[in-house]
């Protein structure tokens, strides 16, 4: 009986000792990893600071202005280009009257082949005044009614676009 109890305690002590050592070494290696990670984080942070400073340096207004002069030639916005509301923007003048183009040859086809559709003259929206089709061929279904007259006001135009959608 006594022997059994001794054995039990002996096993328990050995097991807990082993477990303790295992945990100790695990903690030690974790601690090393933590230290390494912290060092790496600090290095990364230093690198970030350098990059941040470099970013600020490269984005100096003077440097941007110089690059603008060389590559873009943008100029400051003139006061007359600024409008406070959409309503202030003048409408495009109505296009001069022009003869209706010849009816497209594939009007009747319900589901025309894509290449025919692309090749067909478009009857969709036209840029007022220019007479050129503005809707890409792939988006415009052939056979729709010709473009409505230009909108009288912006609200009307917006309403019309909303209706089409």
């Amino acid at each position: 009986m006594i022997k059994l109890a001794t054995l039990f305690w002996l096993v328990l002590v050995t097991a807990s000792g082993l477990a303790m050592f295992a945990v100790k070494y695990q903690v030690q290696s974790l601690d090393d990893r933590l230290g390494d990670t912290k060092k790496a984080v600090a290095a990364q942070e230093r690198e970030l600071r350098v990059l941040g400073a470099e970013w600020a340096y490269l984005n100096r207004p003077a440097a941007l202005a110089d690059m603008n002069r060389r590559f873009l030639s943008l100029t400051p916005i003139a006061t007359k280009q600024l409008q406070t509301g959409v309503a202030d923007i003048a409408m495009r003048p109505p296009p001069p009257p022009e003869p209706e183009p010849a009816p497209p040859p594939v009007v009747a086809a319900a589901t025309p082949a894509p290449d025919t559709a692309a090749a067909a003259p478009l009857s969709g929206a036209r840029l007022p005044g220019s007479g050129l089709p503005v809707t890409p061929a792939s988006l415009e279904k052939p056979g729709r009614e010709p473009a409505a007259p230009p909108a009288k006001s912006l609200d009307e135009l917006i309403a019309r676009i909303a209706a089409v959608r």
Partner: protein
Amino acid sequence: MVALQQFDDNPCRPRHFKPPPCVPVVPDGPARQALDGSRARLLAIGAAFVVVFAVIALRAGEVALFGTGTARTPIARQHRSAPPAPMRADIVDRNGKLLATMLDSPSLYANPRQILDAAEATRRLLTALPDLDGAQVLAKLTSGKGFVWLKRHLTPQQEYAVNQLGIPGLQFEHEERRVYPYGALTSHVVGYTGIDNEGFAGVERGLDRVLNGRSEPLQLSLDIRLQYILHEELQRVVDDFTAKGGDGLIMDVNTGEILAMVSLPDFDPAHPGAPDPAHPEISPAERMFNRVTLGDYEIGSVFKIFTTAMGLDSGATTMTGTFDATHPIRIGRFTISDYHGKHRVESVPEILMYSSNIGEAKIALAVGAQRQQDYLRRLGLLSPPSIEIEEVGKPHFPARWREVSVMTIGFGHGISETPLQVAAAGAALVNGGVLRPTTLVKLPSGYAPQGRQVISPKTSEEMRKLLRLVVEYGTGEMVGAKGYVVGGKTGTADKVVGRHYAERKLLSSFLGVFPMNDPKYLVLAMVDEPHPNKASHGYATAGWTAAPAVGRVIERIAPLLGVPPVDESSPQIEHALMVESLQGKHIEAY
């Protein structure tokens, strides 16, 4: 125990007799007493152990079951590789753009006792760092000391080159260095630091303690875009008119925040004392001088807005009041005459519009010496300006406030002010009459610091109308910036050289506010000694130099500040800024 043994070991003990097994035979006497004593002691010690173990068990249970912060922190704190916090906080502008930061910059030092061959080490070191002085390095390396600095703040390339040499006895010390990505653009505001990163000028010095004690960046009220625009336009005026210098600032009139502050010539904060290679004749001291806060100038006619305001606010005159400006005033050895004179009786709006010295002198006389001083003191014009940086100048004014002083101060002579306080007081005239402290630190959005009511809201409204009038019909016509309802006042002063006014040395300035129907921002520009050029038809007055510069600045900054252009001839704006006393009269535009 002894008794029991005696009993048992007795050879004569009969076999059949056995003492009862568990009953100790305890003799009486001293032995018994000793036994009782030890039992009591055992009990006490046992109880103590029980208590201690109970505490340990409870604590262990608490740690295991609930976890606790107190057990963990000391371990984390002593961890050897915690990243070091930057020594000094970054400085950023109001949009978070980096104005000053700390970067790694190792410094090279040597232990001369470990150097084997000083001459050889010096020769090789000079190949990696050619800008070192060879003789000095050799002297340091043969000094026999244990520690000498060789070069502070190396670049990464230099560090690599020195490491490649592999000279024993050379070591690097990890150090950090202040870097200013925008260079000269923010030089006077942000300032610069010394080799040990202590603040020497500007915000770096004024807020040194704040910067040292925090990890998150310090956000200034500055906007680097506005700073650049102001800098560029001022530089243009200085170059166009071959001026000695210039300065300017942009300020939020409702909060007192400084959005831009430029003083020309400026300096590179990385090399503050070095001469400018492009202009070696300009001394470093002159370049490092902050004209906006430290310089004090007789600003001349811009000062008339304060005289007019105190005239209206004190009741000494009204918007319909008139003063005779037909003849120059002679007092003592002085003669006060008009530059843009109309030589007739002028109303108060006309006096400001045509910038009449005679008229303003008479308004000042009507206000009186005592009230004039009171108003100037309330406007903060008789004490140094309040701002976070330490380079602030003191206004100069006569100790004895005589009648002639009253008159000359009325049109801005005989009193010198820093541009910063002129701007702050000017903002108070148009924002409803509240003087707020100027600040370089960004305020929380929507917060305006407690101000002091210095003139009544009614006077402030009248001043808005008058300043608009100056730009619409008066000396400020050259401002331009149509659509932003600019108002303002020009000022062209003869500079004091020695004890006299120099005829051909001017100080041209313009104080502009926009939009005048609801003042939001103030732009002040000052040009020091502009020289007339062909494009200005021989003029170097404020109307031709500072005013157009302010106009260009406003045209460029208004879209960034979200101020939309409006139709200046719309009835609402015309009505809001209408000067009733001039209605129906013929305005002699200028």
